[in-house]
């Protein structure tokens, strides 16, 4: 039986962009406003899961050929790596720093190394979330 899911597919096409944009926004707005690596990753991950639920595995995989186990692994490496990195600057483990930089076009921006750490968190969350859901749904 073929399920008629035209409405779902049409809605998802629009909604997924909103969700993913929201995820990215949340990720970057962290630190000074609600958001951050964990919640950003969670939103991005749920957006990807929504894609997988709406379309079939092969279609999504063709467009997004990531191995999400590796994404999660990369995240763990980023998080621990940014923690270890501090040691080489003669600072205690996990120290983070921040500074203001002036860029052409976009102007002055606040950059922090904690963003790398948060990116690690986000990637781990995305990777783990999608890995778990995919492996359960792939299981026959």
């Amino acid at each position, binding site marked *: 039986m073929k399920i008629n899911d035209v409405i779902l597919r049409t809605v998802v096409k629009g909604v997924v962009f909103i969700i993913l944009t929201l995820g990215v926004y*949340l990720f970057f707005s*962290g*630190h*000074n*406003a*609600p*958001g*951050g*690596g*964990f*919640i950003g990753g*969670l*939103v991005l*991950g*749920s957006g990807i*899961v*929504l894609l997988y*639920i709406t379309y079939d595995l092969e279609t999504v995989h063709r467009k997004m050929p990531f191995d999400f*186990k590796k994404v*999660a*692994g990369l*995240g*763990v490496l980023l*998080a*621990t790596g940014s*923690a270890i990195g501090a040691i080489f600057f003669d600072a205690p483990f*996990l120290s*983070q*720093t*921040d500074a203001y930089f002036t860029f052409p076009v976009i102007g002055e921006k*606040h950059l*922090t190394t*904690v963003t790398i*750490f*948060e990116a*690690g*968190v986000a990637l*781990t*969350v995305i*990777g*783990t*979330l999608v*890995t*778990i*859901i995919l*492996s*359960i*749904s*792939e*299981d*026959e």
Partner: protein
Amino acid sequence: MTIEIAIILTPFIMAALIPLFYRRLQRSFIGWVVLVVPVSLFLILTTYIPHIANGKTVSHTFEWIPSFNINFTTYIDGLSLIFSLLITGVGSLVILYSNFYLSMKESLHHFYCYLLLFMGAMLGVVFSDNLMVLYAFWELTSVSSFLLIAFWHHRKASRAGARKSMTITVSGGVAMLVGFLMLYTMSGTFSIREIIADVNQISEHALFIPALVLILLGAFTKSAQFPFHIWLPDAMEAPTPVSAYLHSATMVKAGIYLVARFTPVFGGEMVWFWAVTGVGLMTLFWGSFNAVRQYDLKAILAFSTVSQLGLIMSLLGLGSAAVHLGYSTSSIIYTQATFAALFHLINHSTFKGALFMMVGIVDHEIGTRDIRRLGGLMSILPFTFTIALIGCFSMAGLPPFNGFLSKEMFFAAAVTITELDIFSIENIGIFIPIIAWVASILTFVYCVIIVSKTFFGKIKPDVAEKNPHEAPFGMLISPFVLIGLVITIFFFPNILGEYILRPAMASVYPTFPVAEMTPHIHAWHGFNIELYMTIGVIVLGLLLYRYMKYWIKIYRIFPQYWTLNAMYERIISSSENMSENMTKRYMNGNLMHYFIYIYISFVVIVAGTFLLLEAFTWNPSLDAPVENFELLLIFVMIFASFALLFAKSRITAVLLNGVLGYGIAFFFVIFRAPDLALTQLVVESVTTALYLLCFKYLAELKPEQSSKRVKVSNGLISILVGSTVTLIGLAVINYEKFESISTYFEDSYKLAGGKNIVNTILGDFRAFDTMLEVVVLFIAGLGVYTLIKLKAAKKGDADT
């Protein structure tokens, strides 16, 4: 970064690099690349000799965890220099030898990686001044030894031997750790040098003797002393170069290092004197007694190593008497035992290393190590025969080889000690030279067995058929270097004494004048009791060997059931059964039971702690007023949770659960926690998606069939958990036992550069938690993945 830290780190760095580059190298090159490490380290360390021989020491501190007094302090003095030279020197020879010994088909990158890991760890042990760092390296040597013993892990005996050595040495290591912590409690420092400096303050402490015993346990297990020696013969399953390196020259001497290092601390105690001397002598005798009846050449060498380690250990015990006596012109003579110990330590590494390599050659060329199948190899392997002859003569204590010198000094020390009248030596001290002498006779017997059964007599027909030939030149270099040393040390022992041993004596006896403790070693010192003892050893040893078949039966008297190995097996298997039974009792696969365990322990621990500390307080005046829409929300949630209890289908249950989750999210919004609300909403949605995926695997929801009693008790537990949480929630508002840490977070912008406190806590103040949570999350994800994929891989036989 100083040169000493670099010395310790180089092997580790190389070990980390091997997996990266080994694919690009030709297989035969790996060993040669690795060889660069020990050779260059050896050369660097030799440059320290003149400096150390002048009585100086080198020390450098890298602050690691200063708040816990744990610093990476390297300290090079005479004692650590001896060991480091052995580690790098024998290490170079062993790696050179392995290049020819190991087949190119073996997983060489693993082998050299573990070997380098061991080398670095061992250097760390002897260079560390900080007890905690020393302990970490100490356990790392056990781990690398485990990996090397199990190198041929497809063989059951290798795995069993590896496990045995790991179990015994790590248990001893943990005992030693407790001893170290006791020392810290007494002295307030982890630095060995500082402990030695205020030994007078701590020697009266009640923990002093327990610490002594525990540290000795660590040393005895590592150095294979009776009754812990049983792991060493089983460790012979390792490739022969490993046996030559770890299990005769270096790792098993870590215990000896520890005893020598702690002699200034504990040496004055009677317990120390008798424990080290007694266990050493017992090991010396038991090892040599058991070596005689072995058939495997490596097993003979293993027991011989056990016995020789006992010899060195007992010498250190005898030498500790001098610490008790304190410095005087009459007590200086007792320090000679320690001098002999350090001298024999070096000698043993030279001849035993050569002998192990000799056995490796025999095994490699003939294909067996069983002396019942060997014989007459003198004509086939003439060079190997030379190595065996010189090595065995040195081990048996014959001139003109270095073993003779140290064995004579051992006899001298054993005889001298009987003149003392402390520690009740006057009563039983006479047994010390007697046991030493008897064990030396047995040592002589097994040395003769090794040489004669392997190289004399007729060639066995099945060996002759294979048409064996002498080992390749490369394999002979290392043993020949070692037996070259055996002879050189005999003729020039005083160079070694002057430059290497004398500074080490200063480390063991810091309060004694160094110059008087260095004797001039003579090969010939007239007809005295030591020489008569040696002559007696030769005569009686030859007689015993000649009439071996008449007395060999005594080995069968001892019942098999009571041997140490059988007892070890019984302890291991019974503890396995016990833990299995215990685990089966609570891991029964019933989720309901797990929840009961979790909740009961939660209530007992948390509510119990609150009750004990009288932390449950009730003060409604501080509570915020409850608004009407909050009441409405609470009513909805209560309704949903009651409905959940009576849900007939799973989909209803999932939806009602969702109502609860979204209700909580609403509360987060009301209480102005947008981060939490957002997270809760997304988590709820993802959980629902997961439920949908899992639906087809779940069985139909059946009405609960449990008895009334179970239902009541479950209900009681849920009510208890709920009320505990509620009461804690009400109590924390009024809690005043300690200061709130929230003020700390209020400075988040200044301290962490972020205005969102939640995020600065996650990413900065408590980043350690976040980092580990990320790791846990990743591991959990991999766990789910592997569980599902593994089940799919062996579909059919998996019924869960």
